[in-house]
């Protein structure tokens, strides 16, 4: 997870510094494993090195899950993660060979964050919390679960919209802003519902507040892109990376809500 997070940071810096084509060949860099680290090559080649490391770690993860995990669906998820990282490498190569075609660049951006969320989900599935299978009754379990899923879908659409804005130099900004408002509304709804549920407040309130904090930070960073032109490289990269954290957090919270929330039947109706 940590390496993948760093990879997303490195990838964000490649786009923000305009270094995507500083290495014109792939998979080698100027025909070498280690080209001179000058100019834009510093960003692009560092990104490739971290990607290679993440690829190796993902292979180890997939093999470990295959050998040690009893749940078949978790083994398949490990294989999916491996296929995703290979696909991501291929997309990265295609962006270089075909000189940053917009569609492939957007796919590369979206798959990066999808892969990060997949790893977050795998962390949850292999955690003690998940294995303990603790259940928490609450009156609005279905409603809360639906809200989490809807919010996560909106966040994923926001990821796509953000990638379009980034790789078309501002295209689709209206949709990006609209989705931001929708996500904010949904998170506030979730917060209010969870705050009313005494039995799950301890378990879910803090993570939802954390997610809402990330969203507030994201909105400030988004505004910062326009207000702080001199710091645009850092601000846009931080905005993109924070987006990955938001998506992964929403995915984890959604999965936890389905794992542990159950609708509480009121005593009067028994």
């Amino acid at each position: 997870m940590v390496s993948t997070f760093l990879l997303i940071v490195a990838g964000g810096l490649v786009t923000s510094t305009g270094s995507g084509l500083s290495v014109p060949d792939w998979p080698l860099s100027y025909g070498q494993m280690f080209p001179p680290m000058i100019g834009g090559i510093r960003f692009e080649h560092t990104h490739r090195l971290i990607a290679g490391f993440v690829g190796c770690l993902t292979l180890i993860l997939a093999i470990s899950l295959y050998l040690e995990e009893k749940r078949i669906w978790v083994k398949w998820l490990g294989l999916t993660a491996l296929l995703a990282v290979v696909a991501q490498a291929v997309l990265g190569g295609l962006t270089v060979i075909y000189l940053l075609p917009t569609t492939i660049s957007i796919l590369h951006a979206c798959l990066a964050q999808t892969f990060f969320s997949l790893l977050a989900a795998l962390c949850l599935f292999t955690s003690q919390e998940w294995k303990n299978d603790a259940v928490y009754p609450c009156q609005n379990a279905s409603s809360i679960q639906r809200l989490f899923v809807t919010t996560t879908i909106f966040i994923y659409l926001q990821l796509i919209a953000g990638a379009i804005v980034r790789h078309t130099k501002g295209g689709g900004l209206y949709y990006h802003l609209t989705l931001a408002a929708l996500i904010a509304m949904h998170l506030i709804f979730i917060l209010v519902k969870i705050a009313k549920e005494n039995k799950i407040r301890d378990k879910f309130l803090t993570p939802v507040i954390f997610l809402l904090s990330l969203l507030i930070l994201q909105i400030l960073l988004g505004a910062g892109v326009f207000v702080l032109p001199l710091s645009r490289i850092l601000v846009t990269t931080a905005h993109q990376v924070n987006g990955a954290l938001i998506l992964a957090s929403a995915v984890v919270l959604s999965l936890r809500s389905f794992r542990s929330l159950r609708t509480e039947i009121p005593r009067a109706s028994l």
Partner: protein
Amino acid sequence: MKNKRLFLSQNLGLLLWVLTFVFGFTGVSDAATIAGKILFEGAAPAPETIKMGADPKCQLAHPNGLASDDVVVNSNGTLKNVFIYVKDGLAGKTFDAPKEAVVFDQKGCQYSPKIFGIQVGQPLEILNSDDTLHNVHSLSANSQQFNLGMPIKGMKLKKTFTKPEVMVKIKCEVHPWMHAYAGVLDHPFYSVSADDGTFALKNLPPGNYVIEAWHEKYGAQTQNVIVGSDADTKDIQFQYKG
């Protein structure tokens, strides 16, 4: 015998007269020139200092720093690096692309020339004179783009543009301050304003032309110019404001 000599001298004279008329007339029919100056009004913008820390070899080539050359106002109040060309008026005429290449060099971590013209199909010889790694990326919309790594000093590559385009930006993806512009045309009538702001479009056939001047920061301007035959020279000026 005497009649024979007279006959020969008269016919030789007639022949010489005809040849003078024909070649003399042909020699001046495409010799019109449109020349002039690019004037600049206002204060020259303060040049930005380019930071070359990203590559120690570039920094070594410019130990005192390097001023940006996006806007160069000459000492006589004219503007350098303006691309002037015939935009319209040559319909139906074709011009062969020269076989001689336009040399485009990377020296001192700068492109040279910064602004240049080239004909469709004419070779562009890209040279790396630096002891550092460059890459050349053409951002053409009409011709196939290229993005070429040039890691070795002395390395040469050749490329051509297949369709006209004004202007094609060329940039180095390793050194972000390096960029140049190529005016790709299907005719040879173009010029770039020099250190004294002057330009000249020579050997034009007679006609009614639209002449465009293009600057990377200040944009494009056009003028209509009519040139006749017989070594007609027209003097025009473009003026940009700072």
